[in-house]
């Protein structure tokens, strides 16, 4: 042991909120990070966004009216935080990492990763509402009503973002489908 890294103040006890957050973490952390990667693309940023969402839901735990809906609150927090982090880091969108194109003879694994990059790049070029609607619709399999509730917009708006977003994404990804 080199030295002590004391990350928590003394006198901390495990509360209901702690236990609930831990259970939510076990069941949903990886899935929420994947959702966040669809929204912000960068893995490190996605992890930060999801951790912030957990901290925020924990902080409001005693004021949440329905603890069974905690996962819904978490998802909404992830979407909102992803949007705000992109707004504050507008530069990132234009700095999407450009790895050199694959070398000749690239194997199946690198073709897979090229396709994954292309999908994430394409998502990043969409307007944020379209990207959010597509992520909730195709990754979480949400209904129009669930998407509307999560994003706080009307079902009519969901429908129009979904159809425009899907058309744009198909166009961008013609080569990969």
């Amino acid at each position, binding site marked *: 042991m080199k*030295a*002590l890294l004391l990350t928590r103040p*003394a006198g901390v*006890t495990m509360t209901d909120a702690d236990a609930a957050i831990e259970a939510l973490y076990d069941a949903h*952390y990886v899935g929420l990070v994947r959702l966040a*990667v669809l929204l912000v693309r960068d893995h490190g940023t996605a992890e930060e966004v999801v951790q912030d969402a957990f901290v925020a839901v924990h902080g409001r735990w005693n004021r949440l009216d329905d603890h069974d809906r905690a996962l819904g609150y978490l998802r909404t927090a992830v979407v909102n935080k992803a949007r705000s982090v992109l707004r504050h*880091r507008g530069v990132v969108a234009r*700095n999407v990492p450009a*790895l050199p194109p694959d070398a000749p003879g690239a194997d199946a694994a690198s073709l897979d990763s090229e396709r994954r990059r292309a999908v994430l790049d394409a998502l990043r070029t969409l307007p944020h509402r379209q990207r959010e609607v597509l992520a909730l619709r195709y990754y979480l399999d949400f209904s129009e009503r669930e998407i509307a509730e999560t994003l706080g917009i009307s079902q009519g708006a969901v429908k129009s973002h979904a159809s425009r977003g899907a058309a744009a994404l198909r166009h961008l990804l013609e080569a990969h*489908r």
Partner: protein
Amino acid sequence: MNDLDTHDDDLRTLLHDAVSDVQPEPALHRIRSRTATRPQHGARTWLVGLAAAATAAAIAGVVVVTTQRGPGSDSGPVASPTASTSAGPSASTSAGPSASATATVPSTERALGIYYVGDTPQGPRLYREFHRLRVADGVAGAVGPAIAQALDRADDSDYRDLWPDGTRASVRGATGSDVTVSLSNATLDLRDRPAGTSAADAEAAVQQLVYTTQAALQQRLPVRFLVDGQPSDSLLGVGVSGPVTNGPPLETLALVSISEPPEGFEVTGPFRASGVASSFEATVPWEIRRGDRVVKRGFSTASGWMDKLYPWQTDPISVADLPEGTYTFVASTDDPSGGEGAGPTSDTRTIVVRH
């Protein structure tokens, strides 16, 4: 999903596939350290130990880190604590020739799995430790900081430093099919195996950088090594004339590694430990020791065994019955031979119990 079109399984498949390889690092301890409620009366003693300074130093030196060991290196250059959250220009601008892939600003923090060499009954093997490092955005932006950390020392002093003092690394580029890393040392010829380093140690040291690079990339790409910027047939005496792939996990990695808690973690309530292992019948025994005395023990079950390392996680471990103080958490592989065979592999973390 019945009110939306159902003929778009193509997009569903593409989106699921696009993130199917995303495996975030464990973060429960990080979340809990941010949600911990403070005591009512004002005794907020935030003790920041040397390790925190060392971490900050590692953050400051993300791009090219020279291994500087010896007295006082722990208290070396300390980054401004505010730097870690700022999205401003980062140290990566000093990367110079270390490839466009790492030169993107702004940078963020990521928890990266860094591999270190430790001793096991099977000889030198790689253990994994998580470090939060500032990285440049992008797929390859984490490689330079990760290798720099691997060349520097581990938090756990059980792991060994096999790279000669003063070894520096720079990432010379990444393609879809491999990554190029150049290593240099002003006083030693890195092509030769240093005196006092066994062939098995040297092999492990090279694999340490391959595994660390792949963890940072989250892809199993081979690593092309240069010495002083030039292609070389040999690195520490190990043949590296072509791109080096990762060794088979069961012959390269320690058969058990602890991901959480981190070294020196303060435990104030029930905690879970987690990691990866390949242990007989997937059983991962754990112990809490005070000195040489075992004060608590149990076991967890990994999600598999035999062909590779699988994740394990303990149930919440209560420390309410332990007096405050410093303990060692030990996770092991199961040893069905009862001492007849080579014996178990284990990994340890120092933990501090406070009430």
